[in-house]
């Protein structure tokens, strides 16, 4: 088996008094794409929140190792520096902060954490332009405030654009297909596939097969009531599509 990138062991997590994840085990090897599928309320978004260190989500027991490091001991920004990226189900609007300024600060913060010099303005602008083209964002978006007044599809494309800019080792796509029409879905999927290399892994969290028609997973996990109840290959997707989540 390939090198283990992410190892989740017996993970329990709650929000407030409510336990949502009740003993999740998951291993992701380098270069693999995993899908986590499950009905509403299964804990899919909690899993992505815990992986990225969102405040108010409490891990009550269990461990997460990312490239041999204790992920749970790291701040959200440190996880980003280590190479984790979350494409948000509901991207957040940041009034007054332009995409250019946002990305410049993000890219250079990560570079600083890795002991690299900040990118010079022309280098940065070249990178920005190249990655915007990848998800077919019009150049004028660079000057717009982050997600403010964006349509659902534009917000999701902006997520994949940011992913391209930050070049993560592990990308987590949380319901990236929700609210997308077929054309936007295709653009997003093409972006994800273009960024995928044998060095990189991804977790695609979804309750439909939509995105999985374009981004083919190596492993499919079914998450239900806070536990992984089935693991298989791509054939599981068809099984879910035909008979739903009730069978598990």
């Amino acid at each position, binding site marked *: 088996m390939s090198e283990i990138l992410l190892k989740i062991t017996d993970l329990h997590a709650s929000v407030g008094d409510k336990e949502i994840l009740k003993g999740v085990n998951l291993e992701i090897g380098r270069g693999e794409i995993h899908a986590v599928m499950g009905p509403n309320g299964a804990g899919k978004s909690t899993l992505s929140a815990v992986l990225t260190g969102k405040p108010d989500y409490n891990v009550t027991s269990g461990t997460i190792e990312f490239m041999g490091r204790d992920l749970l001991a790291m701040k959200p920004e440190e996880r980003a520096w280590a190479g984790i990226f979350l494409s948000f189900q509901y991207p957040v609007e*940041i009034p007054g902060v332009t995409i250019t300024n946002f990305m410049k600060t993000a890219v250079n913060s990560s570079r600083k954490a890795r002991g690299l010099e900040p990118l010079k303005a022309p280098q940065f602008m070249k990178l920005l332009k190249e990655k915007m083209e990848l998800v077919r964002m019009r150049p004028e978006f660079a000057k717009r405030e982050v997600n403010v007044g964006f349509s659902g599809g534009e917000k999701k494309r902006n997520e994949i654009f940011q992913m391209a800019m930050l070049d993560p080792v592990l990308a987590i796509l949380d319901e990236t297909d929700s609210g997308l029409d077929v054309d936007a879905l295709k653009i997003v999927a093409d972006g994800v596939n273009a960024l995928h290399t044998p060095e990189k892994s991804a977790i695609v969290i979804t309750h439909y097969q939509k995105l999985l028609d374009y981004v083919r997973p190596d492993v499919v996990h079914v998450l239900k009531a806070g536990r992984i109840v089935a693991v298989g290959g791509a054939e599981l997707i068809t099984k879910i599509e035909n008979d739903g989540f009730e069978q598990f």
Partner: protein
Amino acid sequence: MASNSSEKDHGNYVPTPVGAGVGVRDGESLKEVFVVGEDHIPECFVAGKDSSLDITVIVLPGCKAGIPLKFELTGEGASVRLSGIFLCKDDDGVSFDITMHHRAPRCKSNQVFNGIAAGRSQCSFSGRIIVAPGASLTEAYQENHNILLGDLARVGTKPRLEIYNDDVKCSHGATVGKLSEEEQFYMRSRGIPEEETKVLQMISFVAPVLSGCDDPVLAGRVEAAIREMA
């Protein structure tokens, strides 16, 4: 009793003499930026016919001050843009007492004050707009938005509209809130350190006022002050 509807009811309007102050003559314009504690700030401005005033008041940390400001719009068609930023921390205390008195027809005033209070600082904003009888077709707007950075900081905001005229457009808005943690988490998940996310939020919060100043040196000072507060 409104038994005689043809007689204009001026309510409780109490005529007051026009205050003495910096006069901006008919058709002239004045643009000034004042830093509280460094610049002398006139307490009263008198705006003549078709004159235009653009006044910005900046409060940087380390300030204890009461700031009375009065604008007398005496000439028809005068316009006033009044903006302010206040950054308070530790035991700072700042209190704005603003009166925008529309005395003539077709005048416009637009006020925007954005404040950030940290530490145990105490800030208050009292903004009064008076539209005198006869000052028809007045447009008067006022916004005061505030961010509290700590549990011990205090901001009081009190807009007051006194309108003795039917034919006017007036509005005011006031908010007191905290920096959004949801925005912070989104930015942190992209690798921006927590402190820097706060700086970005605060700079964007004061940007609408600061961009109107066209003063890069002052903008740099405001940014430096914000970095110290984050």
